[in-house]
């Protein structure tokens, strides 16, 4: 049962916070503020997660809950994203009247979403997959509308409706999948799909056609990304950070399940679809981000373009593919979190979301400006920051398959992305601030999170053992069922 510990610990902390909130104990001076409990909860679950490293793979509930090495890394990524999101919270929730803006409830919902995502990572059959996927998405609709501002409801509703449409497509797809084998477990479906005889080929086609939109919604791929900009803009900045990192990784987990664990034999035929989707997402994300004024909307498009790059990793059925996707998602989380930390502070303390309001940040608060610059350069894929290393490995997967033109398009896209990242750096470093802008002040927890994220942005790409471990984990996983 120990491999369930990470999820169990999260849910335990959530209930613990609920009970404390029940007795309205947070307002008394003596008690610690809720994010400490959350942070310790997530910390312990990370520790317990990596404690499992030795025994993997373990299976529970009759094959429905499996923890392989690759899942440990996926869960680790999600937990790290959650950890950083929680460090951002004190910056926006003023601790005086917790009850007024429901800070404890926010954390509880966040923790439950995290546990949902962890369940998704280990699920091995359609029911658990669907339920934990909904567990990972439904609370986000509420989190997006948490600020109760004029636009937050609008963003949340758009997110909900498209989410619901996505999940109904998914249900229909799963229904068709069920037709191939009696059982709902991935393994049996994968085997059934291995050699679909001629007449059921159309059924596979229909199943794939219904399932890809569900995946596309979660991973913000091109035609299914339309919710992302509005949801990112509407939600409070930590939630935008959470959406762009944790929810993106959950999308990757869903992609691993669907593309590698179910449709692994169809992957060869799916390559053209994937190439078109990833190129379209990349190009749209980059070219539209050029014209954005609002910071959060800009980050939305930047994360859409990153999704385009990440999809390249799924072009092959090889350990390097999934390893580089995982490696890049870790780098992406650290980089994004570093960027969002500074953006949260800026938006919270200047109440302005326009890129131009970043004017002269390097003069008012040089430290934070430097962090944001590093993060943006890493997103643009500039060496020696780790963003470049991650991107290089991803492009190498596409190059291995011979898609040199796709690598060329991706490289040109990252040059275009450099243009709009430089536009922000220009605001910070070249333009001078208006006189009275105060320098940004950050609560201790957020500052600690920020420093940790920046360290990650700079060093993850350079330390080779980290990538080797991930590669080893994905090789183990491939050995398991490629036999």
């Amino acid at each position, binding site marked *: 049962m120990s491999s369930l510990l990470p999820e169990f610990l999260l849910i335990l902390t959530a209930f613990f916070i609920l009970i404390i909130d029940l007795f309205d104990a947070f307002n008394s001076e003596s008690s610690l503020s809720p994010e400490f409990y959350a942070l310790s909860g997530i910390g312990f679950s990370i520790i317990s997660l990596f404690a499992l490293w030795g025994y993997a793979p373990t299976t529970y509930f009759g094959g429905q809950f499996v923890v392989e090495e690759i899942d440990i890394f996926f869960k680790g990524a999600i937990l790290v994203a959650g950890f950083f999101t929680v460090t951002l919270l004190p910056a926006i929730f003023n601790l005086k009247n917790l009850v007024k803006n429901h800070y404890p409830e926010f954390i509880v919902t966040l923790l439950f979403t995290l546990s949902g995502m962890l369940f998704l990572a280990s699920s091995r059959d359609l029911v658990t997959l669907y339920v934990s996927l909904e567990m990972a998405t439904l609370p986000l609709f509420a989190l997006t509308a948490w600020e109760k501002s004029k636009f937050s409801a609008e963003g949340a509703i758009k997110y909900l409706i498209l989410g619901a449409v996505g999940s109904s497509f998914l249900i229909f797809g799963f229904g068709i999948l069920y037709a191939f084998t009696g059982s709902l477990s991935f393994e049996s479906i994968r085997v059934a799909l291995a050699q679909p005889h001629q007449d059921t080929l159309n059924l596979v086609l229909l199943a794939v056609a219904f399932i890809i939109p569900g995946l596309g919604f979660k991973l913000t791929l091109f035609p299914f990304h339309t919710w992302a900009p509005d949801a990112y803009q509407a939600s409070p900045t930590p939630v935008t950070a959470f959406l762009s990192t944790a929810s993106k990784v959950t999308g990757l987990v869903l992609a691993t399940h669907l593309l590698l664990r179910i449709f692994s034999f169809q992957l060869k035929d799916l390559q053209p679809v994937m190439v078109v989707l990833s190129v379209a997402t990349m190009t749209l994300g980059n070219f539209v981000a050029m014209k954005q004024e609002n910071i959060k909307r800009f980050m939305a498009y930047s994360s859409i373009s990153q999704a385009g790059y990440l999809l390249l990793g799924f072009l092959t059925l090889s350990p390097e593919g999934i390893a580089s996707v995982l490696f890049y998602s870790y780098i992406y989380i650290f980089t994004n979190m570093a960027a969002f930390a500074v953006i949260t502070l800026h938006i919270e303390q200047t109440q302005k979301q326009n890129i131009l309001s970043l004017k002269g940040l390097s003069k008012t608060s040089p430290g934070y400006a430097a962090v944001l610059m590093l993060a943006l350069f890493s997103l643009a894929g500039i060496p020696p920051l780790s963003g470049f290393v991650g991107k290089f490995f991803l492009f190498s997967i596409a190059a291995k398959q011979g898609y040199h033109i796709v690598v060329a398009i991706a490289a040109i896209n990252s*040059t275009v992305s450099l243009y709009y990242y430089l536009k922000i750096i220009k605001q910070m470093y070249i333009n001078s601030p208006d006189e009275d802008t105060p320098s940004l002040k950050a609560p201790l927890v957020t500052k600690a999170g920020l420093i940790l994220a920046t360290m990650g942005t700079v060093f993850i790409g350079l330390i080779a053992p980290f*990538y080797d471990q991930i590669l080893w984990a994905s090789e183990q996983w491939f050995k398991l069922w490629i036999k």
Partner: protein
Amino acid sequence: MGILSLIVFIPFLTAIFILFAKSPKTIKSIALAGTGLHLLASFVLTYLFFNSPQNINPDPTGLSLQFVEKWDWFSSFGVSYFLGVDGISLAMILLTSVIIFTGVLASWNVENRSKEFFALLLLLVTGVFGVFVSFDLFLFFIFYEVAVLPMYLLIGIWGTGPKEYSAMKLTLMLMLGSAFLMVAFLGLFHLSGLNTFDMTKLAQVNFDLQTQRWIFPTLFVGFGILGALYPFHTWSPDGHASAPTAVSMLHAGVLMKLGGYGALRIAVYLLPEGAKEWALFFMALTTINILYGSLGAIKQKDLKYFTAYSSVSHCGMVLFGVATLNFIGFKGAVLQMVSHGLMTGLFFSLIGMVYGRTHTRIINEMGGLAKVMPWLATSFYIAGFASLGLPSLSGFVAESQIFMGGFMGNPWHDLTWMRVLTVLSTMSIVVTAVYVLRGLAQVFMGPITNLHFNELTDASLTEKVTTALLIASLFFVGLYPKFFVDMIEPAINPIINRLNM
């Protein structure tokens, strides 16, 4: 921690120290000390290179590298931290350490935010050193982009004129160049069959003609964009005009050489068949580059544009040398890199000094300055004569090699075509003479046009040291080329043997 890692990371460490320094005075002295130490280190390296036992690579087409440092980095990906130095890299290291030392001296009066300025400048130069010593394509690419990126901030913050526009254009075009390179490197990595980025191993692979036919132009154009190849050179005039002195010195002097170096070291060495297919086309392109650059410089009004166009033409000569695909041509290309680096370094530092005094770079607004600042005038003239290829100065040695190489032709291309192109590019020595003398005569000779020029001062001590050092090295290369020729020739043999194989 071999000497090469030291060479690469001394500027980086100085940059770190600078970040902790407080007053501008200490910042400048640390920067100077760092680059001075680095100059010393490169001289020591040269001494060791010539005197220590040479490990000669038995295979004629293999590189014989000295002071090799090789550690596995991403072993699963075949990426290793692989440093080495041979004749060509050593020549470039010497050039760069001289240019950065004089660059720091030339930017002695940068006051606003001098801490970031020097830190970024040294970061840029770390990238450049890294490129010259790394023999692993991945590491090469990392240092290549590190060298390009600080340009944006350096030009954007400390530049003059339309600085944001030209900074953005420069960075984006150079990044597009490196995008080309990334595609080519990945292509090389995957089509070579062996899972490594190590250049020496990739050199043993004979890629099939089809792949070489598309990878070589991508590589050559990718490097050409930085080496001011004809249609992609437009970033260089704007970029240099708005960049501050030290940055344009470093950029035109050294960064544009990365293009030539990469084209020779990677494009031609790894893909000989591709080189044979495309060299004549690129030779024609670079001929346009040479003539176009020099003719363009005649009508320029601004001193910096004037020098920028002349460096477009000279960098064109570097690529022309590479495109001749013969022994003398290659040697000429490397010599031209060294000589043009020193020349443009001197030119831009002098322009900085003159601009510091007259606060104008428009040629017609100045006149008769020789009477007021004889030292600067003479050094300007020496730089001018070096650029038009006067013997006893480095320009002539390099240009004669390139033109001889172009004239001698190579066994794979039609000789008359090469000879026509060589004659066309030799004409540039006349056009260069025209615009150099016209420009300098207008600025320095004749009666003083603007009265308040009279109380301008001549070169200060730091400026004297800068110009003296650069002029001395120009004369050294010009008068005693044997030093560089003996250094470069053994390094070119593998490339030629590979072509002849």
